[in-house]
C-alpha cells in the first residue's frame, strides 16, 4: 500500500512536470474512452490477483482455458474453405491437410445455408458460389471421401440448416465405419446472429431456438465430441457494432441458448462444455487482446454464478477467432497480409483455441491458392518462428492491458444489463432495435473513414498512384450448377421415393409436437431427402421469418 501511495505521488509530480503544457490531446479507445499517457501499478490498485487474474486453466480463466496453453498443443490452424462442387472441395481439403492444416472448416453455398436445393429456379446463379453446394447426403459423401472423420475435426459454417448437415456428417461417418461418438468438430448453429447480422435465417425465432435445443440434446447423448454451437459476436462486429457490443451481444445470445437447454431439464454441466465462441480480431492489438480476456472472465463468472455450473469445463470460454474481414481493403491488397498478421498475433496473444486468417484477396474474390497458402503460412510463422506462444498469456500483467481488460469487462456488463432492462436480446431482435444499433455503428465508422478521422493506410491516407497489384478473380461459370442439378436428378431417381415421403411426413409430425427433430431428420437424410425438402417440411409447420426493415 505504501508503495502504491509513493507511485501515485511520484506520478502526480511527473505529470505536472512533463504533461502540463498539454500540447497533445489524450488518445481514445475505439469506443471513445480517454486514455492516460501511461499506466502504472496504481491503476490496478483494486485488483485482487488470485481472485481476478489467477492462473491459466483455472477460474476465472482470464489467462487462458488450459494450464499449459500452447505448450500442451498449438492452436488449431483452421482456414475456412470450400467452393464449387463437392469434388472440388474434396480435392481442396486433401491439399490443405497435406500442407499441415489441422482441422477442416467448410464453407457452404448460400442455397445450402438457406435451405434451397440446386434445382430451385431462384438460386440458379448462386449454386456453389460462396461455398460448396450440398443437396443430399451424396454430396457430403463426396466432400469427405478419403478423409478419415475419426482423425480430423470439422467446423461447419451452417446455421438454420445445421441439424441437416450434422445428420449428414454422422451418416458419412457411419458409412466410413466411424462411430458418431468418435467424430468431433464445431457447428456454427448460432441462429440469433443470423437475424442480427448474417442473414441466412429461415424460420421464426422460437422454432429456430427449438431446433438448437434439439441439437444440444441429441449431441449430448449421441455425438458427445461435437461443439454444438459456436456463439458469434464476430458477425455483429463485421456488420458495424463496436468491440464492446460484439462481446455483449454474443454473450447475451449465449445466455439465451443456455436457458433453452436448461428448459429441457438438461443439467448445465452436461452441455455447457460443448459451447464455443467466435469473436473477431482487429488490428487494435491491446484492445482486442483485452477484449478476449475480458470475455473469458465474464463468461466464467456468468456460468458459475448465474447458472450454477460446477464443472470447470462449463465455465471455459473456448475461442475460435478470425480476422475482421471488414478491415481488409480492396485497394492495395498486399497490405492485407500485414493486417492479417497483426490480427493473427492478437488471436495468439489472447490464447485462442482455433484461428482463421483471412486471405489478402478476400475483399474481392474467393481466395486464390497462393493467398490461402500465405494465410496458413502466417499462422505457421507465428507459431514456429516467433516463440510468442512459448508461455501462457504473455501480455498478462501489463498495467495497460489489465486496465483495459477491466474497463472492457465493465462496459460489456453495462451493455448486457441495458439489454436485459429493455426486455432481453430476443425482444431487441424482434423489435429491430439491436439491428438499428449495429447499422448506426456502421454508418458512424464509415463517416469517420470518409472524413479522414480514422486512417486506413492506402485508402484515405498515403494513397498510391501506382498501378494496383493484380488480383486473380476466381472464375465462375454455370458448370457447377449444371453438375449439381444433374447429380441431384440422379440421386432422386435412385432413392426410394416412398421412404423419402414417409421420412418427410415424420419430420412434419415431430415438428408439430415436442420430440427431438434430429431423429426424423437423420432418418430423412439417410433416405437421401434433400436439404430443400427437409426445410420445406419444417416451414409447413413453423412458418417463415419476416424481416423487419
Amino acid at each position, binding site marked *: 500500500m505504501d508503495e502504491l501511495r509513493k507511485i501515485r505521488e511520484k506520478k502526480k509530480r511527473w505529470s505536472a512536470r512533463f504533461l502540463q503544457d498539454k500540447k497533445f490531446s489524450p488518445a481514445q479507445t475505439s469506443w471513445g474512452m480517454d486514455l492516460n499517457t501511461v499506466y502504472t501499478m496504481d491503476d490496478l490498485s483494486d485488483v485482487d490477483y488470485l481472485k481476478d487474474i489467477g492462473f491459466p486453466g483455472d477460474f476465472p480463466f482470464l489467462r487462458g482455458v488450459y494450464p499449459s496453453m500452447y505448450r500442451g498443443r498449438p492452436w488449431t490452424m483452421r482456414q475456412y474453405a470450400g467452393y464449387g462442387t463437392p469434388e472440388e472441395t474434396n480435392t481442396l481439403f486433401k491439399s490443405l491437410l497435406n500442407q499441415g492444416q489441422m482441422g477442416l472448416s467448410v464453407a457452404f453455398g*448460400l442455397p445450402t445455408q438457406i435451405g434451397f436445393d440446386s434445382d430451385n429456379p431462384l*438460386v440458379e446463379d448462386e449454386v456453389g*458460389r460462396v461455398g460448396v453446394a450440398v443437396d443430399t447426403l451424396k454430396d457430403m459423401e463426396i466432400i469427405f471421401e478419403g478423409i478419415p472423420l475419426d482423425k480430423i475435426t470439422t467446423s461447419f459454417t451452417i446455421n438454420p440448416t445445421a441439424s441437416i448437415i450434422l445428420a449428414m456428417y454422422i451418416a458419412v461417418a457411419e458409412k466410413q465405419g466411424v462411430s458418431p461418438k468418435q467424430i468431433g468438430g464445431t457447428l456454427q448453429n448460432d441462429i440469433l446472429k443470423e437475424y442480427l447480422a448474417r442473414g*441466412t435465417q429461415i424460420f421464426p425465432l422460437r422454432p429456430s431456438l427449438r431446433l438448437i435445443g434439439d441439437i444440444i440434446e441429441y449431441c449430448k447423448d449421441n455425438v458427445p465430441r461435437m461443439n454444438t454451437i459456436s456463439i458469434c459476436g464476430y458477425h455483429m462486429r463485421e456488420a458495424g457494432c463496436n468491440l464492446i457490443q460484439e462481446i455483449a451481444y454474443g454473450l447475451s445470445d449465449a445466455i439465451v441458448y443456455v436457458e433453452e437447454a436448461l428448459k429441457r431439464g438438461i443439467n448445465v454441466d452436461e452441455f455447457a462444455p460443448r459451447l464455443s465462441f467466435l469473436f473477431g480480431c482487429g488490428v487494435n492489438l491491446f484492445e482486442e487482446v483485452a477484449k478476449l480476456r475480458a470475455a473469458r472472465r465474464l463468461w466464467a463468472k456468468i456460468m458459475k454464478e448465474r447458472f450454477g455450473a460446477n464443472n470447470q469445463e462449463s465455465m471455459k470460454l473456448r475461442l475460435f477467432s478470425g480476422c475482421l474481414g471488414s478491415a481488409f481493403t480492396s485497394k492495395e491488397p498486399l497490405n492485407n497480409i500485414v493486417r492479417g498478421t497483426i490480427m493473427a498475433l492478437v488471436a495468439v496473444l489472447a490464447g485462442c483455441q482455433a484461428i482463421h486468417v483471412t486471405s489478402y484477396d478476400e475483399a474481392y474474390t474467393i481466395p486464390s491458392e497462393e493467398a490461402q497458402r500465405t494465410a496458413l503460412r502466417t499462422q505457421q510463422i507465428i507459431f514456429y518462428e516467433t516463440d510468442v506462444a512459448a508461455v501462457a498469456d504473455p501480455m498478462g500483467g501489463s498495467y495497460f492491458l489489465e486496465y483495459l481488460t477491466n474497463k472492457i469487462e465493465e462496459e460489456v456488463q453495462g451493455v448486457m444489463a441495458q439489454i436485459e432492462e429493455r426486455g432481453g436480446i430476443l425482444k431487441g431482435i424482434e423489435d429491430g432495435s439491436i439491428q438499428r444499433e449495429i447499422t448506426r455503428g456502421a454508418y458512424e465508422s464509415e463517416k469517420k473513414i470518409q472524413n479522414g478521422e480514422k486512417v486506413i493506410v492506402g485508402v484515405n491516407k498515403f494513397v498510391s498512384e501506382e498501378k494496383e497489384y493484380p488480383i486473380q478473380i476466381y472464375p465462375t461459370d454455370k458448370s457447377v450448377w449444371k453438375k449439381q442439378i444433374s447429380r441431384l436428378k440422379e440421386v432422386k431417381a435412385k432413392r426410394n421415393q416412398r421412404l423419402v415421403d414417409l421420412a418427410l411426413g415424420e419430420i412434419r409430425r415431430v415438428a408439430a409436437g415436442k420430440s427431438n427433430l434430429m431423429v426424423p431428420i437423420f432418418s430423412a437424410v439417410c433416405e437421401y431427402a434433400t436439404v430443400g425438402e427437409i426445410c420445406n417440411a419444417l416451414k409447413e409447420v413453423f412458418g417463415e421469418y419476416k424481416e423487419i426493415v
Partner: protein
Amino acid sequence: MDNKERLPRRILIAKPGLDGHDRGAKVVATALRDAGFEVIYTGLRQTVDQIVNTAIQEDVDVIGLSILSGVHMELTKRLVKKLRESGAGNIPVAVGGVIPPGDVEKLKEVGVAGVFSVGTSFKKIVDFIRNI
C-alpha cells in the same frame, strides 16, 4: 425553373439474391436519407421480379442494388432485362458491393448507370443521383 429537379428523389435500395450482407445497403440507405432523399429499403433476399414490382409501384427514380456474393453480373443482367420487359427500362440502375475492377465496364455495358464498389464515398453516390 429547376426546382422540380431539386426535390428529394425516391430511391430504392435492394438486396437481390441470397446474400445476407446488408451492412453496405443499410449504410448507404442511411447516408442517402441524411442527404435528403426518400429511401425505400427492400430487406434481404428479394427476387428480381419483386424488385422490379416495388420500383414501379413506388415510382422510384433510381434503383440501387447491393451485391456482395459475387453474382452481380448475373443478377444485374436479369434485373435490367426484367425492367425493360416491364416498360420501366428508363429507371436508372446503380450497383454497389464487392465489384472487381474488371467488372465495372461489363456492368455498364449491360446498362448500369453507376457502379459503386465497397469504400465509395457517400458524396460520390449523392452526386451521381443528383446528376441523373
